[in-house]
Protein backbone atom coordinates (compact mmCIF):
# COMPACT_ATOMS: atom_id res chain seq x y z
CA UNK A 1 0.00 0.00 0.00
CA UNK A 2 2.70 2.40 1.03
CA UNK A 3 4.86 1.32 -1.90
CA UNK A 4 1.95 1.89 -4.27
CA UNK A 5 1.33 5.35 -2.82
CA UNK A 6 5.01 6.21 -3.16
CA UNK A 7 5.04 4.96 -6.74
CA UNK A 8 1.91 6.93 -7.56
CA UNK A 9 3.36 10.02 -5.96
CA UNK A 10 6.58 9.60 -7.92
CA UNK A 11 4.64 9.16 -11.17
CA UNK A 12 2.55 12.28 -10.58
CA UNK A 13 5.60 14.27 -9.56
CA UNK A 14 7.61 13.19 -12.58
CA UNK A 15 4.78 13.89 -15.04
CA UNK A 16 4.15 17.32 -13.58
CA UNK A 17 7.94 17.77 -13.54
CA UNK A 18 7.97 17.27 -17.31
CA UNK A 19 5.17 19.81 -17.73
CA UNK A 20 7.11 22.20 -15.50
CA UNK A 21 10.22 21.81 -17.65
CA UNK A 22 8.27 22.63 -20.81
CA UNK A 23 6.71 25.80 -19.45
CA UNK A 24 9.83 26.97 -17.55
CA UNK A 25 11.01 30.48 -18.33
CA UNK A 26 13.01 33.16 -16.56
CA UNK A 27 10.12 33.93 -14.23
CA UNK A 28 10.22 31.61 -11.24
CA UNK A 29 6.96 30.75 -9.53
CA UNK A 30 7.16 32.22 -5.98
CA UNK A 31 5.95 28.92 -4.52
CA UNK A 32 8.81 27.08 -6.26
CA UNK A 33 11.34 29.73 -5.26
CA UNK A 34 10.12 29.52 -1.66
CA UNK A 35 10.47 25.74 -1.57
CA UNK A 36 14.01 25.94 -2.97
CA UNK A 37 14.93 28.54 -0.38
CA UNK A 38 13.45 26.44 2.41
CA UNK A 39 15.24 23.24 1.47
CA UNK A 40 18.52 25.12 1.08
CA UNK A 41 17.95 26.53 4.56
CA UNK A 42 17.51 22.99 5.82
CA UNK A 43 20.83 22.05 4.17
CA UNK A 44 22.48 25.06 5.83
CA UNK A 45 21.26 23.85 9.21
CA UNK A 46 22.71 20.42 8.44
CA UNK A 47 26.04 22.02 7.60
CA UNK A 48 26.06 24.19 10.71
CA UNK A 49 25.46 21.29 13.06
CA UNK A 50 27.85 19.02 11.16
CA UNK A 51 30.41 21.80 11.53
CA UNK A 52 30.21 21.56 15.33
CA UNK A 53 30.77 17.80 15.20
CA UNK A 54 33.38 18.00 12.44
CA UNK A 55 35.48 20.56 14.28
CA UNK A 56 35.71 18.16 17.23
CA UNK A 57 36.32 15.14 14.98
CA UNK A 58 39.22 16.93 13.29
CA UNK A 59 40.71 18.20 16.54
CA UNK A 60 40.02 21.83 15.69
CA UNK A 61 37.81 22.15 18.77
CA UNK A 62 37.97 20.30 22.11
CA UNK A 63 35.53 17.42 22.55
CA UNK A 64 32.46 18.60 24.47
CA UNK A 65 29.88 15.88 25.05
CA UNK A 66 27.07 18.32 25.71
CA UNK A 67 27.64 20.49 22.62
CA UNK A 68 28.18 17.40 20.48
CA UNK A 69 24.96 15.84 21.70
CA UNK A 70 23.05 19.05 21.04
CA UNK A 71 24.36 19.22 17.47
CA UNK A 72 23.65 15.54 16.84
CA UNK A 73 20.14 15.86 18.25
CA UNK A 74 19.52 18.79 15.91
CA UNK A 75 20.70 16.69 12.98
CA UNK A 76 18.39 13.91 14.05
CA UNK A 77 15.48 16.37 14.18
CA UNK A 78 16.39 17.75 10.75
CA UNK A 79 16.43 14.28 9.21
CA UNK A 80 13.04 13.66 10.80
CA UNK A 81 11.30 16.62 9.16
CA UNK A 82 8.61 15.91 6.63
CA UNK A 83 10.34 17.49 3.65
CA UNK A 84 7.95 16.44 0.89
CA UNK A 85 6.66 20.01 0.37
CA UNK A 86 10.24 21.26 -0.12
CA UNK A 87 10.69 19.31 -3.34
CA UNK A 88 7.76 20.29 -5.58
CA UNK A 89 7.70 19.18 -9.21
CA UNK A 90 9.30 21.78 -11.47
CA UNK A 91 11.90 22.83 -8.91
CA UNK A 92 14.77 20.95 -10.57
CA UNK A 93 17.91 22.37 -12.18
CA UNK A 94 16.53 21.97 -15.72
CA UNK A 95 13.34 23.85 -14.94
CA UNK A 96 14.52 26.78 -12.85
CA UNK A 97 17.66 28.69 -11.90
CA UNK A 98 19.03 28.77 -8.39
CA UNK A 99 19.03 25.05 -7.68
CA UNK A 100 21.43 22.19 -8.36
CA UNK A 101 18.83 19.47 -7.74
CA UNK A 102 18.89 17.26 -10.85
CA UNK A 103 15.65 16.11 -12.52
CA UNK A 104 16.81 12.55 -11.74
CA UNK A 105 15.75 13.15 -8.13
CA UNK A 106 12.13 13.32 -9.21
CA UNK A 107 12.52 10.29 -11.44
CA UNK A 108 13.87 8.07 -8.66
CA UNK A 109 11.72 8.82 -5.68
CA UNK A 110 11.93 5.37 -4.06
CA UNK A 111 15.72 5.63 -4.12
CA UNK A 112 15.64 9.17 -2.73
CA UNK A 113 13.47 8.01 0.16
CA UNK A 114 15.83 5.11 0.81
CA UNK A 115 18.79 7.51 0.90
CA UNK A 116 16.91 9.87 3.23
CA UNK A 117 16.27 6.94 5.56
CA UNK A 118 19.97 6.05 5.50
CA UNK A 119 20.76 9.64 6.49
CA UNK A 120 18.30 9.40 9.35
CA UNK A 121 19.90 6.15 10.54
CA UNK A 122 23.35 7.79 10.43
CA UNK A 123 22.05 10.77 12.43
CA UNK A 124 20.44 8.43 14.98
CA UNK A 125 23.78 6.65 15.39
CA UNK A 126 25.51 10.00 15.83
CA UNK A 127 23.27 10.97 18.77
CA UNK A 128 24.54 7.94 20.67
CA UNK A 129 28.12 8.36 19.51
CA UNK A 130 28.34 12.10 20.19
CA UNK A 131 27.55 11.63 23.89
CA UNK A 132 29.91 8.65 24.28
CA UNK A 133 33.42 9.93 23.51
CA UNK A 134 35.56 11.50 20.80
CA UNK A 135 36.52 8.18 19.20
CA UNK A 136 32.86 7.19 18.84
CA UNK A 137 32.04 10.60 17.38
CA UNK A 138 34.86 10.29 14.85
CA UNK A 139 33.67 6.81 13.94
CA UNK A 140 30.10 7.97 13.31
CA UNK A 141 31.23 10.89 11.17
CA UNK A 142 32.17 8.70 8.22
CA UNK A 143 28.71 7.17 7.87
CA UNK A 144 27.08 10.57 8.10
CA UNK A 145 29.38 12.01 5.45
CA UNK A 146 28.75 8.99 3.27
CA UNK A 147 24.99 9.46 3.56
CA UNK A 148 25.26 13.13 2.51
CA UNK A 149 27.56 12.20 -0.35
CA UNK A 150 25.34 9.39 -1.64
CA UNK A 151 22.48 11.74 -2.34
CA UNK A 152 24.66 14.54 -3.68
CA UNK A 153 26.52 12.09 -5.91
CA UNK A 154 23.35 10.97 -7.62
CA UNK A 155 21.14 14.03 -7.57
CA UNK A 156 23.17 17.24 -7.54
CA UNK A 157 24.91 19.18 -10.32
CA UNK A 158 28.70 19.49 -9.88
CA UNK A 159 28.80 23.26 -9.36
CA UNK A 160 27.02 26.43 -10.44
Amino acid at each position, binding site marked *: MKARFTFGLAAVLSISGLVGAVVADSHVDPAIAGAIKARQAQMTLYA*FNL*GTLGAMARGNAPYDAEAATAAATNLQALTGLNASALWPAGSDSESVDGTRALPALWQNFPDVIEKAQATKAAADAMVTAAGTDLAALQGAMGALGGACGDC*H*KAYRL*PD*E
Partner: protein
Amino acid sequence: MRIHRWLIFFALVGIAVYWVVTRPTRVDAAAIAGLEEDVARGETVFYAAGCASCHADETAQGEAKLQLGGGQHFPSDFGTFTAPNISPSTEHGIGSWTREQFVTAVTQGVSPEGQHYYPAFPYTTYTRMELADAVALYGFMKTLPAVETPSQPHQVSFPFDIRRNLGGWKFLFMSDDWVLDGDLTPEQERGRYLVEAMGHCAECHTPRNALGGMQMASWMGGAPNPAGRGSFPNITPGKLTWSEGDIAAYLESGFTPEFDSAGGHMALVVENTAQLAPEDRAAIAAYLKAIPPVDG
Protein backbone atom coordinates in the same frame (compact mmCIF):
# COMPACT_ATOMS: atom_id res chain seq x y z
CA MET B 1 52.37 17.88 -65.95
CA ARG B 2 55.10 19.15 -63.65
CA ILE B 3 52.48 20.52 -61.21
CA HIS B 4 50.83 17.13 -61.11
CA ARG B 5 54.08 15.50 -60.19
CA TRP B 6 54.60 17.95 -57.30
CA LEU B 7 51.05 17.37 -56.07
CA ILE B 8 51.66 13.65 -56.00
CA PHE B 9 54.95 14.23 -54.19
CA PHE B 10 53.36 16.38 -51.49
CA ALA B 11 50.46 14.00 -51.12
CA LEU B 12 52.91 11.14 -50.56
CA VAL B 13 54.89 13.19 -48.04
CA GLY B 14 51.63 14.07 -46.30
CA ILE B 15 50.58 10.45 -46.13
CA ALA B 16 53.99 9.46 -44.79
CA VAL B 17 53.89 12.16 -42.10
CA TYR B 18 50.34 11.17 -41.17
CA TRP B 19 51.39 7.53 -41.01
CA VAL B 20 54.34 8.28 -38.73
CA VAL B 21 52.53 10.78 -36.50
CA THR B 22 49.44 8.66 -35.99
CA ARG B 23 51.24 5.35 -35.50
CA PRO B 24 50.21 3.63 -32.25
CA THR B 25 53.14 3.18 -29.88
CA ARG B 26 53.91 0.23 -27.62
CA VAL B 27 55.67 -0.01 -24.32
CA ASP B 28 59.14 -1.58 -24.43
CA ALA B 29 58.67 -5.17 -23.26
CA ALA B 30 62.23 -5.33 -21.93
CA ALA B 31 61.64 -2.30 -19.71
CA ILE B 32 58.88 -4.03 -17.77
CA ALA B 33 60.12 -7.62 -17.86
CA GLY B 34 61.93 -7.48 -14.53
CA LEU B 35 59.30 -5.55 -12.58
CA GLU B 36 57.33 -7.12 -9.76
CA GLU B 37 53.53 -7.40 -9.76
CA ASP B 38 53.33 -6.03 -6.22
CA VAL B 39 49.62 -6.34 -5.35
CA ALA B 40 49.73 -4.04 -2.29
CA ARG B 41 51.46 -1.32 -4.30
CA GLY B 42 48.97 -1.92 -7.11
CA GLU B 43 46.06 -1.37 -4.73
CA THR B 44 47.39 2.10 -3.87
CA VAL B 45 47.77 2.85 -7.58
CA PHE B 46 44.21 1.61 -8.14
CA TYR B 47 42.77 4.11 -5.65
CA ALA B 48 45.13 6.95 -6.56
CA ALA B 49 44.38 6.53 -10.26
CA GLY B 50 40.63 6.31 -9.62
CA CYS B 51 39.88 3.34 -11.91
CA ALA B 52 36.62 2.43 -10.15
CA SER B 53 35.15 5.93 -10.44
CA CYS B 54 34.46 5.29 -14.12
CA HIS B 55 34.63 1.51 -14.58
CA ALA B 56 32.43 0.42 -11.65
CA ASP B 57 28.70 1.07 -11.58
CA GLU B 58 28.09 4.67 -10.51
CA THR B 59 25.83 3.57 -7.65
CA ALA B 60 28.08 0.74 -6.45
CA GLN B 61 28.96 0.60 -2.77
CA GLY B 62 31.56 -1.37 -0.82
CA GLU B 63 32.75 -4.57 -2.47
CA ALA B 64 30.68 -3.83 -5.58
CA LYS B 65 33.07 -0.99 -6.34
CA LEU B 66 35.61 -3.65 -7.27
CA GLN B 67 33.37 -5.03 -10.03
CA LEU B 68 34.71 -3.17 -13.03
CA GLY B 69 32.10 -4.17 -15.59
CA GLY B 70 31.92 -0.68 -17.11
CA GLY B 71 28.77 0.87 -18.51
CA GLN B 72 28.95 4.46 -17.22
CA HIS B 73 28.28 6.97 -19.99
CA PHE B 74 30.31 10.15 -20.54
CA PRO B 75 28.62 12.63 -22.89
CA SER B 76 30.87 15.19 -24.58
CA ASP B 77 31.04 17.48 -27.61
CA PHE B 78 32.52 14.59 -29.58
CA GLY B 79 29.96 11.94 -28.72
CA THR B 80 29.11 9.75 -25.77
CA PHE B 81 31.82 7.47 -24.45
CA THR B 82 30.97 4.37 -22.44
CA ALA B 83 33.42 2.89 -19.95
CA PRO B 84 34.32 -0.67 -20.99
CA ASN B 85 34.55 -3.80 -18.89
CA ILE B 86 38.08 -3.95 -17.43
CA SER B 87 37.40 -6.78 -14.99
CA PRO B 88 39.49 -9.98 -15.31
CA SER B 89 36.78 -11.70 -17.39
CA THR B 90 38.59 -13.42 -20.26
CA GLU B 91 35.54 -13.07 -22.50
CA HIS B 92 34.35 -9.51 -21.80
CA GLY B 93 37.14 -7.91 -19.81
CA ILE B 94 40.93 -7.83 -19.83
CA GLY B 95 41.52 -11.26 -18.31
CA SER B 96 43.54 -12.49 -21.27
CA TRP B 97 45.78 -9.43 -21.55
CA THR B 98 49.51 -9.78 -21.14
CA ARG B 99 51.45 -7.47 -18.88
CA GLU B 100 52.83 -5.67 -21.92
CA GLN B 101 49.35 -5.16 -23.38
CA PHE B 102 48.06 -3.80 -20.09
CA VAL B 103 50.93 -1.37 -19.54
CA THR B 104 50.68 -0.22 -23.17
CA ALA B 105 46.95 0.43 -22.75
CA VAL B 106 47.37 2.40 -19.53
CA THR B 107 50.48 4.43 -20.35
CA GLN B 108 50.23 4.75 -24.15
CA GLY B 109 46.47 4.65 -24.73
CA VAL B 110 46.79 1.83 -27.27
CA SER B 111 44.70 -1.34 -27.25
CA PRO B 112 46.06 -4.89 -27.66
CA GLU B 113 44.73 -4.71 -31.25
CA GLY B 114 46.96 -1.68 -31.83
CA GLN B 115 44.15 0.89 -31.89
CA HIS B 116 44.25 4.26 -30.17
CA TYR B 117 41.85 4.66 -27.27
CA TYR B 118 39.76 7.78 -26.94
CA PRO B 119 41.27 10.13 -24.36
CA ALA B 120 38.14 9.83 -22.21
CA PHE B 121 40.42 7.12 -20.80
CA PRO B 122 42.93 9.42 -19.02
CA TYR B 123 46.11 7.89 -20.43
CA THR B 124 47.43 11.40 -21.04
CA THR B 125 47.80 11.41 -17.24
CA TYR B 126 48.86 7.78 -16.83
CA THR B 127 51.64 8.22 -19.39
CA ARG B 128 53.59 9.92 -16.57
CA MET B 129 53.18 6.85 -14.34
CA GLU B 130 56.25 4.86 -13.36
CA LEU B 131 56.26 1.55 -15.22
CA ALA B 132 56.65 -0.23 -11.87
CA ASP B 133 53.33 1.27 -10.75
CA ALA B 134 51.60 0.21 -13.96
CA VAL B 135 52.91 -3.34 -13.52
CA ALA B 136 51.83 -3.36 -9.86
CA LEU B 137 48.36 -2.22 -10.95
CA TYR B 138 48.27 -5.09 -13.44
CA GLY B 139 48.95 -7.45 -10.54
CA PHE B 140 46.20 -5.93 -8.40
CA MET B 141 43.60 -5.87 -11.18
CA LYS B 142 44.00 -9.63 -11.63
CA THR B 143 42.80 -10.12 -8.04
CA LEU B 144 39.44 -8.43 -8.72
CA PRO B 145 36.22 -10.34 -9.50
CA ALA B 146 35.41 -11.10 -13.13
CA VAL B 147 32.24 -9.43 -14.41
CA GLU B 148 30.54 -11.15 -17.34
CA THR B 149 28.94 -8.06 -18.92
CA PRO B 150 29.85 -7.17 -22.51
CA SER B 151 31.37 -3.73 -23.10
CA GLN B 152 29.07 -1.34 -24.94
CA PRO B 153 30.26 0.62 -27.99
CA HIS B 154 30.96 4.36 -27.84
CA GLN B 155 28.49 6.63 -29.65
CA VAL B 156 30.90 8.75 -31.66
CA SER B 157 30.25 10.14 -35.13
CA PHE B 158 32.49 11.05 -38.09
CA PRO B 159 35.28 12.20 -38.10
CA PHE B 160 35.92 11.33 -34.46
CA ASP B 161 35.17 7.66 -35.10
CA ILE B 162 38.41 7.24 -37.12
CA ARG B 163 40.69 5.94 -34.41
CA ARG B 164 43.86 6.51 -36.39
CA ASN B 165 43.25 10.28 -36.20
CA LEU B 166 43.67 10.06 -32.44
CA GLY B 167 47.37 9.60 -33.10
CA GLY B 168 47.39 13.17 -34.36
CA TRP B 169 45.49 14.27 -31.28
CA LYS B 170 48.07 12.56 -29.09
CA PHE B 171 50.89 14.20 -31.07
CA LEU B 172 49.38 17.60 -30.28
CA PHE B 173 48.16 17.13 -26.72
CA MET B 174 49.91 14.19 -25.03
CA SER B 175 53.15 14.77 -23.16
CA ASP B 176 54.94 13.00 -20.36
CA ASP B 177 56.57 16.22 -19.15
CA TRP B 178 55.47 17.49 -15.75
CA VAL B 179 53.06 20.40 -15.83
CA LEU B 180 54.32 21.91 -12.58
CA ASP B 181 58.05 22.36 -13.01
CA GLY B 182 60.77 23.89 -10.86
CA ASP B 183 62.05 23.26 -7.36
CA LEU B 184 59.55 21.29 -5.33
CA THR B 185 59.67 19.84 -1.84
CA PRO B 186 59.49 16.03 -1.62
CA GLU B 187 55.86 16.40 -0.47
CA GLN B 188 54.97 18.60 -3.44
CA GLU B 189 56.70 16.12 -5.76
CA ARG B 190 54.65 13.28 -4.33
CA GLY B 191 51.53 15.40 -4.75
CA ARG B 192 52.48 16.17 -8.33
CA TYR B 193 52.91 12.46 -9.03
CA LEU B 194 49.53 11.65 -7.46
CA VAL B 195 47.75 14.41 -9.40
CA GLU B 196 49.59 14.53 -12.74
CA ALA B 197 50.37 10.81 -13.16
CA MET B 198 47.44 9.15 -11.38
CA GLY B 199 44.51 11.16 -10.02
CA HIS B 200 43.82 12.95 -13.33
CA CYS B 201 42.13 15.90 -11.56
CA ALA B 202 42.88 18.06 -14.60
CA GLU B 203 40.61 15.96 -16.82
CA CYS B 204 37.62 17.80 -15.35
CA HIS B 205 39.17 20.85 -13.69
CA THR B 206 41.14 22.18 -16.70
CA PRO B 207 39.30 23.83 -19.62
CA ARG B 208 39.72 22.39 -23.12
CA ASN B 209 40.12 23.85 -26.58
CA ALA B 210 37.91 23.13 -29.60
CA LEU B 211 39.78 19.88 -30.29
CA GLY B 212 39.45 18.67 -26.72
CA GLY B 213 43.07 19.37 -25.76
CA MET B 214 43.71 20.90 -22.36
CA GLN B 215 44.43 24.64 -22.16
CA MET B 216 47.61 24.31 -20.17
CA ALA B 217 47.79 28.04 -19.29
CA SER B 218 44.60 27.51 -17.28
CA TRP B 219 45.76 24.31 -15.56
CA MET B 220 43.12 23.39 -12.93
CA GLY B 221 41.43 26.74 -13.54
CA GLY B 222 37.93 25.27 -13.73
CA ALA B 223 35.87 24.15 -16.72
CA PRO B 224 32.30 23.65 -17.87
CA ASN B 225 30.74 20.23 -17.43
CA PRO B 226 30.88 18.51 -20.86
CA ALA B 227 27.82 16.48 -19.88
CA GLY B 228 25.62 19.57 -19.69
CA ARG B 229 24.85 22.18 -17.10
CA GLY B 230 27.09 22.99 -14.19
CA SER B 231 30.86 23.35 -14.05
CA PHE B 232 33.93 22.03 -12.31
CA PRO B 233 35.50 24.60 -10.01
CA ASN B 234 38.82 26.39 -10.25
CA ILE B 235 41.04 24.59 -7.73
CA THR B 236 44.14 26.79 -8.12
CA PRO B 237 45.18 29.21 -5.35
CA GLY B 238 43.51 31.90 -7.49
CA LYS B 239 40.16 30.64 -6.25
CA LEU B 240 40.56 27.82 -3.75
CA THR B 241 41.37 29.51 -0.46
CA TRP B 242 41.07 26.43 1.74
CA SER B 243 44.06 25.54 3.90
CA GLU B 244 46.09 22.44 3.07
CA GLY B 245 44.44 20.80 6.08
CA ASP B 246 40.99 21.68 4.71
CA ILE B 247 41.82 20.14 1.32
CA ALA B 248 43.19 16.96 2.88
CA ALA B 249 40.14 16.67 5.14
CA TYR B 250 37.83 17.13 2.13
CA LEU B 251 39.63 14.36 0.25
CA GLU B 252 39.09 12.07 3.24
CA SER B 253 35.54 12.91 4.36
CA GLY B 254 33.95 14.73 1.42
CA PHE B 255 33.13 17.66 3.70
CA THR B 256 34.08 21.20 2.69
CA PRO B 257 35.22 23.60 5.45
CA GLU B 258 31.60 24.82 5.55
CA PHE B 259 30.43 21.20 5.86
CA ASP B 260 28.77 21.08 2.53
CA SER B 261 29.56 17.70 1.00
CA ALA B 262 31.07 16.58 -2.29
CA GLY B 263 28.55 15.76 -4.98
CA GLY B 264 28.43 14.35 -8.48
CA HIS B 265 31.53 12.64 -9.80
CA MET B 266 33.64 14.30 -7.08
CA ALA B 267 31.87 12.15 -4.49
CA LEU B 268 33.26 9.13 -6.38
CA VAL B 269 36.71 10.71 -6.37
CA VAL B 270 36.55 11.16 -2.59
CA GLU B 271 35.62 7.48 -2.19
CA ASN B 272 39.03 6.78 -3.74
CA THR B 273 41.10 9.45 -2.02
CA ALA B 274 39.62 8.33 1.32
CA GLN B 275 41.50 5.04 0.73
CA LEU B 276 44.90 6.75 0.40
CA ALA B 277 47.41 7.27 3.20
CA PRO B 278 46.98 10.56 5.11
CA GLU B 279 50.41 11.69 3.84
CA ASP B 280 49.23 11.24 0.26
CA ARG B 281 46.14 13.40 0.79
CA ALA B 282 48.38 16.02 2.41
CA ALA B 283 50.73 15.79 -0.59
CA ILE B 284 47.86 16.44 -3.02
CA ALA B 285 46.91 19.48 -0.93
CA ALA B 286 50.52 20.74 -0.97
CA TYR B 287 50.61 20.35 -4.76
CA LEU B 288 47.36 22.27 -5.25
CA LYS B 289 48.80 25.12 -3.21
CA ALA B 290 51.95 25.14 -5.40
CA ILE B 291 50.33 25.37 -8.85
CA PRO B 292 50.11 28.82 -10.52
CA PRO B 293 46.95 30.70 -9.59
CA VAL B 294 44.32 31.14 -12.30
CA ASP B 295 42.05 34.11 -11.78
CA GLY B 296 38.62 32.98 -10.86
